[in-house]
């Protein structure tokens, strides 16, 4: 059945109920209804036009176009500024978020190498580091020094030491403190001075040569202990976490390794071997027990265990050979046992 025209008009105006829409939909399925539908649509548009176009000028344009006969389509004017699709935008956000997350993750994972410069010395290596403020750090073998890559000296002068080092700290006009952190909970605050720090996994030792330093020690669940050090003081921290102050330490032999000088005064070779072991972390083997009793006097300047070994070999007329991480001294007269 054919719905009344009013119904279709209110349907065109978007005011038909669902039931009425259904009626119209059923009617449109019937043949011949389309013509009526468009007839009424036309009537509706003429009754309630959205606007009145300028037909005359458009008609003239149209006639011109028919005359010229070109299939020249006027460019559709899209007055909208281009806007990316919301979904593309959503995926853009997704991409941005993912990249940010990855970057953050990388930054977190690699924050250590990114933010800190780490200097590691190997078993037979000494190194001196010149800091931008003029301070120098001499790093012994088997040591690790970590310092900020950026911002050193902006707000603080901060380094972390694991191992053995001598600090010669320049006093700045700003009185900016220099802070050495060790892994043991011992912290050294200085203004300008020369001192050495030795910190291994649990033990630590600080020797002050000149100036003043302030030690802070923070153990787990304990209040911070503070010690003010005077030149010549030597503070040790043992495995149990006790600090001991020795005020008459021998600073003449203050970290000689730093100068790459090794002084021996009638020292048995056995001792020299153990010193080398302490300084360079290498094992020195003597091929014959006889050699242990050989004594040595003098000062040797050496930058590495190899240099030192060469010098020793020359002084004592020994043969030096390397085996893995070991240095083997043997007497020249003696034929090598194993090679």
């Amino acid at each position, binding site marked *: 059945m054919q719905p009344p025209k009013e119904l279709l008009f209110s349907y065109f105006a978007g005011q038909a109920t669902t039931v009425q829409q259904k009626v119209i939909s059923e009617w*449109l399925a019937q043949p011949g*209804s389309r013509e009526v539908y468009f007839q009424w649509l036309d009537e509706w*548009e003429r009754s309630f036009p959205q606007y009145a176009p300028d037909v005359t000028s458009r*008609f003239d344009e149209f006639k011109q176009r028919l005359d010229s006969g070109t299939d020249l389509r006027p460019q559709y004017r899209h*007055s909208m500024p281009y806007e990316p*699709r919301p979904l593309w935008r959503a995926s853009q956000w997704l991409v941005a978020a993912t990249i940010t997350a990855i970057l953050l993750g990388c930054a977190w994972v690699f924050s250590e190498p990114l933010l800190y410069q780490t200097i590691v010395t190997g078993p037979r290596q000494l190194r001196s580091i010149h800091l931008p403020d003029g301070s120098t750090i001499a790093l012994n073998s088997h040591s690790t020094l970590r310092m900020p890559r950026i911002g050193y000296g902006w707000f603080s002068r901060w380094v972390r030491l694991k191992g053995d080092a001598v600090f010669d700290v320049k006093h700045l006009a700003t009185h900016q403190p220099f802070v050495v952190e060790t892994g043991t909970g011992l912290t050294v605050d200085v203004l300008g001075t020369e001192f050495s720090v030795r910190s291994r996994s649990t033990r630590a030792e600080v020797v002050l040569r000149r100036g003043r330093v302030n030690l802070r020690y923070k153990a787990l669940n304990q209040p911070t202990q503070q010690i003010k050090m005077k030149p010549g003081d030597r503070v040790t921290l043992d495995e149990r976490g006790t600090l001991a102050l020795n005020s008459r330490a021998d600073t003449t032999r203050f970290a000689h390794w730093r100068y790459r000088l090794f002084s021996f005064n009638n020292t048995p070779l056995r001792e020299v071997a153990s010193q080398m072991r302490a300084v360079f972390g290498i094992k020195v083997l003597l091929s014959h027990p006889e050699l242990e009793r050989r004594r040595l006097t003098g000062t040797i300047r050496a930058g590495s265990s190899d240099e030192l070994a060469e010098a020793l070999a020359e002084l004592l007329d020994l043969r030096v050979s390397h085996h893995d991480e070991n240095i083997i001294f043997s007497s020249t007269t003696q034929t090598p046992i194993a090679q």
Partner: protein
Amino acid sequence: MSANAFLFRSSTEPTPGEPKPLAPGDKLTPPTTPDVAIPADNELFIRNAFTTDPRLGCELLFRQYFAPLCSHAVRFVYDRQLAEDLVADLFYALYAKQIYANIKGSYRAYLYQAVRNRAYNSLRWELNRQEPLTNEMDQADSDSAQPDGLLQQDELYQALEQAVGQLSPQRQRVFLLSRFEGKSYKEIAEEMMLSPKTVENHLLRAVSIIRRMLQQQRLIGWGVCGLFILNA
């Protein structure tokens, strides 16, 4: 009749004699005339014109239908200039591709259907940036246009009207000024005392709101959106 009586009267059962509450679309309609499905008797003159001079036929059709077709197209594209271009293109194609020769029903039905297809494609292109399906949109045979298609298109322009109606008054004004009046950002900005940037933002937001509403009602572009999810 007292006010109380009016309050208690059920709105679904209008009292006889009372004026029926009219939908705005009904206001000016004349009383129902016994219209029957006789296609296009008033087109007979034009039909004759086409047999002798197709160009004259096209011009006559243009004169008769250009305005209502534009009014219809603008319900879809919300842009006067674009609507008029669409309709003008349609008439040009009618003549240049000699589509008029293949029209079986009334010219009116063909023209409305074709302008709807064009407007629909243009809208889809604008909201989805998808290539319009230019090949089939001017097909003269009405078989391609299913009754479901008609209803869907009706639903679309009605949903559009609703979506535009739900914009905030200022945004709606900016939208209509830009698209109906064809005013530039600068002109709108001056007229509404806004910065051009604000005008642009209003327009962007308006289009994106409309797009979202249409997508929610699944009137446009879910297939396209799906593709983009897969591609993203």
